[in-house]
Each structure stands twice: as structure tokens, then as C-alpha cells.
């Protein structure tokens, strides 16, 4: 058996309680009640043969290899679907069973190619293993009979192939697509001997509904569904458990290796966030790590119009330190700063903010969470007391009603979306609040009870209207509020919420929705036993982002929906370590653990440890940095793993800011958009080379383990450390583990965390300290972290960004499944097969009025700028709303967006921009300039 294969107990764990006593092959065993015989036996160390069973799927009973004998029963029950009973005497090996199994295997092999030696699954094939286990020596039927040996190979998917000639029709792929992924893209076509796996109705995999999550490939026991990387390279020889570096779900993977080459990434079954599931990004799109675009040598240049010059590490670091020191000397201590990244490890983040606070001696550090979930931190801290979501992902399995606001989980958090869909198929109800008809509104076996198709920018009135109905109709959990919340604030909130402008009827006019839908949705949520709120950037990226987060927390508290499994306020974090980056003290006003920089006691603790004096004044936020740069006061910047030039709003302003800086240092895998304005490029490491931790959306601290040495020669934390040293601050870690040890020492919520502990227990959710030695899955159980839950009044202040005759439409932005954020990674993989360019979704009515045709170019103009992209005419958006993604730099979606931002946190208002669209024939002026600059500023000098 292949060394990387994960243990398979055959059928899912029993959910029943208690145990029963059975006898398996004469030996007594105490097993979980409700288990199948197969699971009970495997847990007792007896491996009954099997093919169609796998513990990620419900029993099916088709292969009949797992038959057993049970004392007192006639026939040969299949162990995968026969439950254990107390006193049952089971025999798993008898002459009769051996014969049955061998004869069934003989039938299988009579319709299977005998090419084991040259088969891609050689050494990792359950059919091969079972043929060996049952001692098949001969196929007496011969091979002249009917067979499927000539069935064609479908290689349409870029990452895996489907070789129908090797299919044993166990349906594991079909069931995985249904039960695990919830897409229902596969089926068994035909019946009897003609049964065959089919994607859709006779389509190939690429053209079908398949989302390429890999669940079918993972489930396949043979070479039928096989990763092309394995077909090309052969089987892995060892594995390393690590954490995916894409979204905030934080899936655990095993990197399957051949020497230091990754040949496959497979989801790890023991991963608490993903339970063995994956999506097209984590499972397959890791090739960017070795893409030819990746920069492997440090580079410097004095002028951004010069070509890059490759240098040794030492020169690059000394150059950086020298330039920063010179700038500080000339323009003052606060004229430089740094940006941490949600894409890097906690340890890497921590040293960057430490470099800024201790080395730059100011607090000009910020992080990309600024532009995504900063309102979450602010809003949840204010109301509940902690800047984080309240639940583990598994909590969704206990929920009855899900209120999903401004999030598109099937695209942006696909693995969690699959879990959510499983719960919805079990009967939980769904309310979607989104201007767009996202996948969860209606998909196979899923239909939202209510879809509130609000206009972009009207989240706050909508949440107020829901609360209005709940208060008015007596659906408030009075006892919960009385026991757990601040009553004075509750009364004030109640008065505010009952104001006429917050009634569903009034809000309906503002938000462009139906009042009855608001009332029905409120009643459904208000009457749920367990109501949970899940949300994404559709909540935060507004000028009222923080208000909305607090509005949701108010609603959850008022309905008693915080503090147990199945409820809560749950931010779906965009990036792999956005939670961790915030936890590590990346914000200009907070030290690790969300403690304000002005706090004397906290500062002293850090000062003593770091041996420096820390500035008690908060530093610049990202937008302040840009403003200061344009004002000539901010001249140098150390940017780790974030592409501000592409991802931040109002590109013209950002570009102007960068152009005015004297030393921009970019540390990244690729020459990204920001690097075009940079003077120093420090090559970074991919997640496959990192040693550290990521923290996902459920506060889970997962280990990231290196599967290969840093390909550019240096760990990223070492780069930062060496810059600090070169600037005169003695940062001196000898390992990433030491960095986490320091975090734990200085941060109460991380007190018990260490690499060693994580390696022992797998993962923990913070707070993890002496009060919660194994971490804290559900927060605020008996009381809120802040003591009494605080209701905050959420009056609606509309954004300044308004539509008018010139800009009559609202643009909102989002993501697509196959691409990730600015696309730096996914655009360098085969994921481009699905979504090669950003497109603009336009409602047919808006298109018709303007003569816009499907698939043709349109210009998209706002008060800030204009770009050109292709239109897709679709009813997914409502009339008056257009939608696009920001995955491709050449599109320049942020040329359009404005500098309006959240009142509390400056999180940009990406989700609301007034625009006009018109048919176009060529690229916009900015796009032309972009192409020009790409040619000029991305040049690397020929090495001499």
C-alpha cells in the first residue's frame, strides 16, 4: 500500500451514544453503538475487505466484498451497511466468505485492464490491494467477453483525468460529489453492465457542472480518476501535513512528495476545518510555487524606470537598511512603515510588526485586513469583546436557520460551503442577503427560503428592519438579554430600532426589496432554535461596515444566538491568515492580542521583552500612508506579501502615492503590481517552504510545515530579522518556533500555544491558555468576553457615493471560485482554464437599454476612472447593479473604485461604486498605460 494513503475506517463514525459488546472472529470487542460491522471491526483492528466503502461517505453496499457471517443469521450480510448489535458474533474470514470474495473479485477483474505495472495507480490501488487480499489467481471467464476496456479517457480537466476503462462503478466519485461536495455533477448513466460514470448528461468533466474540488479523485479507489501530476510523475514517497495557503477556511493538506518535489496535495482527513475535503484551489492550484515567473534572487534599482539588477541577499538587505535609515534621517522617524500580509505565517507577520515598532521605532504598520475585515475586528470587539468570529465551522451542523449576508461561500470559501450545504440538505433553512443571485440561492437540493436582493450599500437598513420585526413581534429572547447583555444599551437600541425609518415598509423603499420578504425572513430567523449569521466582505467593505457588523451582533444577542454550538456571528475570512495577521499586532493601534498601543502596562511588557521604547501613538493606517506619501511626508515602505497597487481602491491615487516614495521594498513571490513602483525586491517563500502557523476564520491555529527548503535561499522571517539587524535593532531568533514562543509569552490568548503543542494536538482555537488548555471552539459561552454584551445603535448613514444621471448603475465586486484575490497565484496555474479574465455581469434590462451584447467589450466608468472589459448578460445581478471581479491586474477593477471607506476602520467601500457602462471597442487609457508600464517597469537586467 502506498505510504501516503490515509487510514480508512470504511464508514463514517456512528453518531449514536453508548457501546455494545460483540465478538469479532472469536475475540471480544467493545464498539460504538450504531457502528457498522465494518467500522467496528476496523476500529478493532480487523480489516474486512472493501471497495465501495470509504469513511467519508455513507455506506452504499455495492461491491459486496465486505460480506461477513453473523451467528444466527442466514446469508452473508455486507458489513458496510449492517449495524452491530449487542452480543453479535461476527466472522470475517471463513472458507465460504473467502470464496465469495474471490469470485466477486474475479468478476471485477474480468472487466478490468491487466496493466497494473504501467498503471498510474500502481502501488496505490484498492482494487489491486483487494485482489491481493482475496488471493485472486485466475480469471476463469477469460477476457473475450463483454467489457469496457476500450472506454475512452476524458482528459478535459486540467488537473485530473477520467479513464473509464478502469472504472469499477463503485459510485464513490458520484457519492463524493453529492455527499461531500454537494454539487451533484456526476451520475451513473445507464444500468446493469452498461452503467458508467458520467459528468452531467454525457458531457466531459470540463464542460459539466464539475467544480474540480477533487472529492471524486480523492474517493476513487482505482486509477479511474487520477491526478495528472501522478500520471506524469508517479507515486509520492513521503508526505508532510500542512495547511493550505488560500482562503480563510484553512484546510489541512498532506503534501505528497517525491524527494523535494510535490507531486500531489490531498486533503487531510484529520484536518478539523476541512475533514478531508478540498477545493480546486488548495487541491490543485499549487503549481504557482514553481512557476517560471517566480523571482529567486533579490533585486534592487535606484529608479523605478531602471531595469532590475539581481544582487546577493546581503547587498539587498544592506541597501534596504541604508535607504530606510537615510529616509528617516531626512524626513523623520515616521516617514517609513511596513505592511504585514495575511498570506504569510503568524511568525512572519509578527517579526514585520516588530521590525516597524522596534526597528523603525514608530507604529506605521498595517495589514491587508484593513481592506477586508477590519470592521469585523472593530464591531465584534465593541459588542462582544473579541475581534473574531464566535464559532467553529462544525457549529453549522447544529444550526437551524442560516442568515448569510454579503458572502458567496461556494466561490470564496468552497470547503465550508460544502459543509453548509450538507446542513441545508439536512433541513436547515437559509436566508440570503445579497444583491446577487449567488450559488446558494438555488442549487441542486438547496434553495434559500428567502433571498433579500438589496441594493448595494443598504445592509444597515436591512439588518435594522429584520431587528425591527423581531422586536415588534416579541421574538426577542428577553431572558437571554436580561442575563447576558447590557440592559441600558439594549433599551437604547430598542428605541432606535423601533423608529419608523427602520420598519420593513420604509426599508423596503431604501433597499429596493419587498417588505414582506424582510418580515418573513425576520420571523424565520427570530423563531429559530439555533440561528446563525455568516457574512463576508459584502458586509465589511462599505462606509458603514463597522455599523453593519455591530448590527448583526445586536441581532444575534437580541435573539439569544451567541454562546453555544449552532449559532453565532461568523465572519468568513478571505485569506488564509487574515485572522492571524490581525492577532499578531499588525494594526497601527494594537499590539498582539488586540491590546491598544496606548496601554502603559501592555507596552511596558513588550518594551521589557524587546529592549526598546515603543511609541504610544498609533501609526498610519494604509490610506493615511498613501495620503502622507502624496503630501511628501511618507517616503519608504516595507511591504510583505501584499499587492497594494492592485488590491487597494482608487488605483490612480495609490499609484500617485507610490510614485512619490523613495524606497519601496516589496517582498513577494512575483513581480506584482506594487513591485512596478519598488526599489528593492526581496523574493519570498511559498507556503510549501514555510515553517509556522496560520489562523483560519474559526480562530484555529494550524501548523504550516515546510516540505522543501526556501527556494530562494532564505526564510522570510530571517529576511525581516536581517533588515532589523542591519538597521541596528538586534532581532535574534534561531527558529520560527521561537517567534511563536515569544508571541505566547506576550499574548494571554496564545499563552499555551507552541509548535510542539500544535504538533501534538493537531490544532487549537484561541484563546488557548490555562483557562482553556485545549483551546476555545465556541466563544462567549457563559458570558461575553467583554462581560455584558453591548448593544450599539446602528442608525443608517448612506454612503456619499451616489448614483446620478451620469453614473446610474452601482458596481459591486466579488470573487470567482477558480481565482483567488488579485490572482497572483491562481493566474499562474491551470485555473485560468475556467476564468481567464475578469468579466462584467450586467442585467439584461440594463444591457438592452445600452445596446450591450453578451461577450462583447464594454467600458465601465466611475467618477474615478474607466476600464474596459467583457460583458456577461445575466439575471444573477438585479437591474441597476453590475458586478465584476478583481483577479486580473490588467483589468484594473480598482481604477473604478472610490476612496470612500468605513467610518471606524477605513476599510474601503469596494462594494458600492456609481458607474456607467457603454459598448466599447478597445482598452481604456489606463489599461494602455498599464501595458506600457508592465513592459518598462518589470524589466530585469541581463546578468553579466
Amino acid at each position: 500500500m502506498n505510504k501516503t494513503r490515509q487510514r480508512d475506517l470504511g464508514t463514517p463514525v456512528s453518531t449514536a451514544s453508548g457501546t455494545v459488546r460483540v465478538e469479532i472472529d472469536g475475540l471480544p470487542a467493545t464498539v460504538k453503538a450504531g457502528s457498522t460491522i465494518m467500522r467496528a471491526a476496523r476500529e478493532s483492528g480487523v480489516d474486512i475487505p472493501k471497495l465501495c466503502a470509504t469513511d467519508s461517505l455513507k455506506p452504499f453496499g455495492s461491491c459486496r466484498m465486505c460480506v461477513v457471517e453473523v451467528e444466527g443469521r442466514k446469508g452473508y450480510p455486507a458489513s458496510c451497511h449492517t449495524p452491530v448489535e449487542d452480543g453479535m458474533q461476527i466472522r470475517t474470514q471463513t472458507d465460504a466468505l473467502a470464496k465469495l470474495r474471490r469470485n466477486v473479485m474475479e468478476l471485477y477483474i474480468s472487466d478490468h485492464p491487466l496493466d497494473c505495472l504501467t498503471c498510474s495507480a500502481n502501488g496505490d490501488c484498492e482494487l489491486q490491494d483487494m485482489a491481493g487480499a482475496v488471493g485472486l489467481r485466475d480469471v476463469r471467464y477469460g477476457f473475450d467477453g463483454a467489457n469496457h476496456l476500450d472506454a475512452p479517457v476524458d482528459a478535459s480537466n486540467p488537473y485530473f483525468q477520467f479513464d473509464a476503462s478502469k472504472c469499477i462503478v463503485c459510485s464513490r466519485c458520484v457519492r463524493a460529489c453529492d455527499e461531500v461536495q454537494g454539487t451533484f455533477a456526476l451520475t451513473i448513466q445507464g444500468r446493469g453492465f452498461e452503467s458508467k460514470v458520467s459528468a452531467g448528461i454525457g458531457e466531459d468533466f470540463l464542460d459539466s457542472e464539475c467544480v474540480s474540488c477533487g472529492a471524486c479523485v480523492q474517493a476513487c479507489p482505482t486509477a479511474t480518476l487520477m491526478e495528472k501530476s501522478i500520471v506524469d510523475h508517479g507515486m509520492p514517497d513521503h508526505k508532510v501535513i500542512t495547511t493550505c495557503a488560500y482562503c480563510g477556511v484553512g484546510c489541512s493538506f498532506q503534501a505528497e512528495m517525491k524527494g523535494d518535489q510535490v507531486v500531489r496535495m490531498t486533503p487531510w482527513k484529520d484536518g478539523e476545518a476541512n475533514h478531508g475535503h478540498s477545493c480546486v484551489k488548495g487541491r490543485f492550484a499549487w503549481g504557482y510555487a514553481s512557476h517560471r515567473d517566480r523571482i529567486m534572487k533579490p533585486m534592487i534599482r535606484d529608479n523605478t524606470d531602471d531595469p532590475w539588477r539581481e544582487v546577493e541577499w546581503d547587498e539587498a538587505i544592506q541597501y534596504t537598511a541604508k535607504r530606510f535609515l537615510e529616509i528617516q534621517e531626512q524626513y523623520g522617524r515616521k516617514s517609513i512603515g511596513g505592511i504585514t500580509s495575511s498570506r504569510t505565517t503568524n511568525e512572519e507577520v509578527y517579526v514585520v510588526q516588530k521590525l516597524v515598532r522596534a526597528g523603525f521605532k514608530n507604529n506605521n504598520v498595517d495589514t491587508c485586513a484593513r481592506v477586508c475585515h477590519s470592521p469585523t475586528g472593530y464591531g465584534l470587539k465593541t459588542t462582544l469583546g473579541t475581534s473574531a468570529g464566535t464559532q467553529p465551522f462544525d457549529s453549522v451542523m447544529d444550526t437551524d436557520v442560516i442568515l448569510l449576508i454579503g458572502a458567496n461561500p461556494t466561490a470564496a470559501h468552497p470547503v465550508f460551503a460544502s459543509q453548509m450545504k450538507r446542513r441545508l440538505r439536512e433541513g436547515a433553512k437559509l436566508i440570503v442577503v445579497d444583491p446577487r443571485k449567488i450559488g446558494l440561492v438555488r442549487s441542486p437540493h438547496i434553495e434559500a427560503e428567502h433571498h433579500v436582493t438589496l441594493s448595494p450599500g443598504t445592509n444597515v437598513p436591512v439588518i435594522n428592519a429584520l431587528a425591527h420585526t423581531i422586536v415588534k413581534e416579541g421574538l426577542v429572547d428577553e431572558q437571554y438579554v436580561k442575563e447576558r447583555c447590557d440592559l441600558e444599551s439594549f433599551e437604547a437600541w430598542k428605541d432606535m430600532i423601533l423608529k419608523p425609518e427602520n420598519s420593513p415598509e420604509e426599508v423596503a423603499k431604501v433597499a429596493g426589496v419587498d417588505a414582506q420578504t424582510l418580515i418573513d425572513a425576520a420571523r424565520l430567523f427570530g423563531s429559530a432554535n439555533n440561528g446563525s449569521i455568516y457574512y463576508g466582505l459584502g458586509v465589511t467593505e462599505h462606509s458603514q461596515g463597522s455599523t453593519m457588523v455591530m448590527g448583526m451582533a445586536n441581532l444575534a444577542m437580541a435573539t439569544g444566538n451567541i454562546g453555544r454550538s449552532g449559532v453565532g456571528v461568523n465572519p468568513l475570512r478571505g485569506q488564509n491568515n487574515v485572522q492571524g495577521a490581525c492577532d499578531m499586532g499588525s494594526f497601527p493601534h494594537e499590539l498582539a492580542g488586540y491590546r491598544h498601543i496606548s496601554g502603559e502596562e501592555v507596552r511596558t511588557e513588550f518594551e521589557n521583552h524587546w529592549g526598546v521604547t515603543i511609541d504610544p501613538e498609533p501609526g498610519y493606517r494604509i490610506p493615511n500612508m498613501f495620503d502622507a506619501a502624496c503630501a511628501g511626508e511618507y517616503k519608504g515602505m516595507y511591504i510583505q506579501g501584499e499587492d497594494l497597487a492592485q488590491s487597494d481602491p482608487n488605483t490612480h491615487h495609490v499609484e500617485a502615492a507610490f510614485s512619490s516614495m523613495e524606497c519601496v521594498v516589496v517582498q513577494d513571490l512575483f513581480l506584482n503590481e506594487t513591485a512596478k513602483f519598488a526599489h528593492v525586491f526581496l523574493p519570498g517563500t511559498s507556503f510549501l517552504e514555510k515553517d509556522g502557523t496560520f489562523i483560519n476564520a474559526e480562530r484555529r491555529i494550524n501548523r504550516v510545515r515546510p516540505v522543501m527548503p526556501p527556494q530562494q535561499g532564505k526564510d522570510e522571517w530571517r529576511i525581516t530579522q536581517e533588515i532589523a539587524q542591519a538597521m541596528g535593532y538586534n532581532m535574534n531568533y534561531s527558529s520560527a518556533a521561537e517567534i511563536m514562543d515569544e508571541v505566547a509569552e506576550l499574548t494571554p490568548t496564545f499563552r499555551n500555544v507552541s509548535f510542539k503543542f500544535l504538533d501534538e494536538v493537531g490544532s487549537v482555537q484561541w484563546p488557548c491558555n490555562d483557562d482553556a488548555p485545549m483551546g476555545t471552539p465556541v466563544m462567549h459561552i457563559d458570558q461575553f468576553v467583554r462581560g455584558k454584551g453591548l448593544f450599539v445603535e446602528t442608525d443608517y448613514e448612506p454612503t456619499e457615493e451616489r448614483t446620478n444621471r451620469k453614473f446610474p448603475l452601482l458596481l459591486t465586486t466579488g470573487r470567482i471560485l477558480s481565482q483567488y484575490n488579485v490572482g497572483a497565484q491562481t493566474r499562474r496555474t491551470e485555473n485560468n482554464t475556467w476564468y481567464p479574465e475578469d468579466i462584467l455581469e450586467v442585467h439584461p434590462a440594463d444591457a438592452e437599454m445600452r445596446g450591450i451584447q453578451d461577450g462583447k467589450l464594454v467600458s465601465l466608468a466611475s467618477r474615478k476612472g474607466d476600464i474596459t472589459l467583457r460583458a456577461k448578460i445575466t439575471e444573477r445581478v438585479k437591474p441597476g447593479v453590475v458586478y465584476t471581479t478583481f483577479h486580473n491586474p490588467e483589468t484594473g477593477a480598482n481604477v473604478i473604485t472610490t476612496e470612500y471607506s468605513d467610518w471606524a476602520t477605513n476599510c474601503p467601500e469596494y462594494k458600492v461604486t456609481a458607474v456607467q457602462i457603454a459598448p466599447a471597442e478597445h482598452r481604456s487609457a489606463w489599461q494602455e498605460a498599464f501595458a506600457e508600464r508592465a513592459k518598462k517597469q518589470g524589466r530585469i537586467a541581463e546578468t553579466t
Partner: protein
Amino acid sequence: MARTRVYVPRETAAVSMGADEVALEIARVNKASGSDVELIRNGSWGASWLEPLVEVEVNGVRIAYGNIAVDDVQGLFDAGFLSGGEHDKRLGPVNEIDYLISQDRWTFWRCGLINPLSIDDFIAHQGFKALEKSFADGAEAVLQAVADSGLRGRGGAGFPTGIKWRTVANAEADQKYITCNADEGDSGTFSDRILMESDPFGLIESMAIAGFAVGATKGYIYLRSEYPLAHKVLLRAITAARESGWLGENIQGSGFDFDIDLHLGAGSYVCGEETAMLESLEGKKGIVRYKPPLPALEGLFGKPTIVNNVVSLASVPNIINLGAERYAGMGVNRSKGTLAFQLAGNVKRGGLVEKSFGVTLRELIEEYGGGTASGRPVKAVQVGGPLGAYIPEEELDVALDYEAFIEIGAMIGHGGIVVFDDTANMAQLARFAMEFCAIESCGKCTPCRIGSTRGMETIDKIINGQEREENYDLLVELCDTMEGASLCAMGGMTPYPVRSVLKYFAEDFAPSAGAQR
């Protein structure tokens, strides 16, 4: 003078033999001759060999004329058949025809007698009496009566109906279902069809009783698509029952709600297997589920569900009306009551014969069937559909009794009896068993999916004399594998006919056997 009632069956067998044309001709001649005929399309009495069986009611007695063709009609009028006149094809009063009066009509007693589409006619013949009695006596009394009657599932498995009903009644759920399995796919069977076409309200009443007994408010009839006439009849009957308050909310003021939907199959034999039928009813592909969980506890849409055959259900009203003891008093051993045997194949007098258990195959084939149609000796009889064993002539004295049949490696199944004369090549019939399985297997489990095709191929090799002994042994092992390891009875019982041929007719596998003829 009152109009003369003439009955022409509207039942598939009769229609296929020209009953519709005969009815039209009677109407034509009636008009032309100035007679005053009230033409009634009744169901069938089940004597298919006499179809079209035309009856004339004369002074309250229904005089039968058998095998009437269009060409006979004018002659019948000329012979004064409207007053029971003598004619070559006159059979005398229908209730004196031996084939019919010697039967034990319990379930099928209204078939042929009434106009299937007339709810009044149905009510005039005890219709809905049992349902009203059930309302009066209560659900517990119904459950007890069904249990006491000893009724067993007539679809083929013979599971005690009372236990099934009790299990569903005891299950706690917000919704329960009654499903009627009318996917009558066994070769040589037609009893469900005759009942649905001849007494549809009887089935509706039966399902309502079942619903009342177990607490189900919704029923489904899963009807095979090959029964278009039954489909039309049932749809009209369901509509009529709804319109007259015998289906729907608060049936006849009883406080009990029950309604029925009709679902057409899509031509898959295996959808007659109860779990595959449930999958199909749920809108999914008809593949078999493993058990447990039993459908009685987790059936349609995961809810407690009764899955009963048409005949099982239709046997219940008389158990309520006439008493469980009477039903239990018929039959032998653990096989109580009656079964609607269906004589088909090479038999002179094919048709439906409802008899108490205990009757022998020989009695059925010789006394009712009148021997083979060809007049040649009987060679084998297949009982219980395509998965039933071939019983040789020398075993025909075995009494029809579930347990007695199991002892000889056979099964009664749904009561289909297909007769073969001595020209039958039994090796080809063994092959057909495998072929049938290969065509109809749902494809879920391996022994059935691949085994049936390999079985066909292996039998071909034996017949062709390729490594005969090895392949003979392999076939026997394959039968063991399919029987021991298949998920459902489809693959599990396909070996029955094959084994019976190996046991009784091994000589037909000789290479020369095919050449002889």
C-alpha cells in the same frame, strides 16, 4: 321496455383481442337494427382465454358469449342474443362458467361484475363499506384484523402484511406514506393489472384503509408505464373519488385525510423491488437501497412507509367486511387465504385463477389451464416470474404453499405460472434468466451487474461445448456468488431458474441438444 344491458370488457387482454372493435360494432348494429342496448364497458372476469367475453343481462341474469369477434356481432343480433338467444359462442350464465365459479374469489370478486369507472356501481357492490367500518372500529381493529388474517405480501416476498402495518403504525413521524407497488413486471403476471382495470376503486379504498390504520395521509401508486389503460382508469377513478369525497381532506366527515398520487415508472424491472421503487418515487434513478433501515421505518423521503403490492392491499377490504377468520380459514399452513394465480405461456386456457393456497400446480394447469395449448406434454413450469425456478412435470403435484415451494428451491412469487411444452430448450431458458438479469440489473452491486453478463457468456460456452466441465463448474460457482453476495433479490434469485435447469434438465446443455431441433 327497459334497455338491454350489454357488457363488453375494457381490460387490456380483452382489448388486445378486439373488445373495443366489438363494442363499436355492437353500437353500430344496435343503431342500425333499432335495438335499445345500454353498452357497459365492464372489467374482466379474468378468463382471458374467453376474451372478448360479451355478456347480455336477461332478466337479471348475465348470459355470456365468449371469444366474440367483430364478425360475430351481426350474427349475435340475428340470433337474438339480446334476449339470451342461442349461438355457437353462447356460454350460458356467466356465473355458471366452471372456470369462474370454482374459484375462491375474495380479492377479485368485483372484477368483471361492475363498471370500473362507476363509483355508484362500486358503492352498490359493497364499495367503501370496509373503509366506513374501519372508521367505526378504529385503526387498532384494522391492524388486528390484518394481522389475524395471516395475509402475506402478494408481490412475491410473502412478508406478513400485519407485521409491516404494525411497524409503520408504531413508528413516530410527522409524515407517513402508503405506497402501492403496481410495477408488475414479472413475466406471465397480470393480476395487478386486471384488478386496477376492473376494480380501481377497490384499490383506492384499500389504500385509504391502510392509511387510516397506520396514520398515513398520503399514498402513491407506482404504476409501470407499460399499463396505459390501467393508468387512464386509475386516474379517472382517483379523480372521481376525490370529487365525491372519498379521497382528500376529511373523508366523508371522518376527520381522516388521505389522498393518492399516481406515478408512472420508466420501464425498469428492478423498480418493482421495493427500495428501488422508493428511489424512483423520490425522483431518483431506480437503484436498490440496502436494508436495514426497513422502508417501514425509513422509506419514502426517509419516512415510515408501507410498500404493498396491489393484490395485498386489495385483499384487505373483505378481511374487514367478512372477518379475518374467514380469510385465515382458507389456505394451508402458513399460507393463508387466496392467491390470484395467473396461467400463461403454453397453456390452453390462460387467465386469472384466484384460489386458496394448497391447490397443486397440476390442478391449476390441467383443470383450469386445460393442459398445453400445443397439446404436447408439459416439460416445465416457471412459477413466480423470470427469477422463479423451472419446475419439471414430475414435481407438479406440489401444493402451492410458500414454504413448500422454498423447500424445492422454487418460489411462488406473485403467482405467475408459465407453462412450457417438451419442445422448450431449457438451456436457452437458463441463458435467458441471465440475459434478463443483464438487461434489467440496476447495476449497483457487482455480482448482478457483471455476473449476469458473465453468466450468459458462460452458458453460451457450455452450449457451444467450450471446456464444458470447467464452465459448468464455473456457472455453478457463479450462481453461488450471485445468490450469496447480491444486494437484492434480482441478482440473488437469478440463479434459481438457472439452478433448476441444471438440476432437472442438465441434458439440455449437451452440445447436441440444440442440434436435435
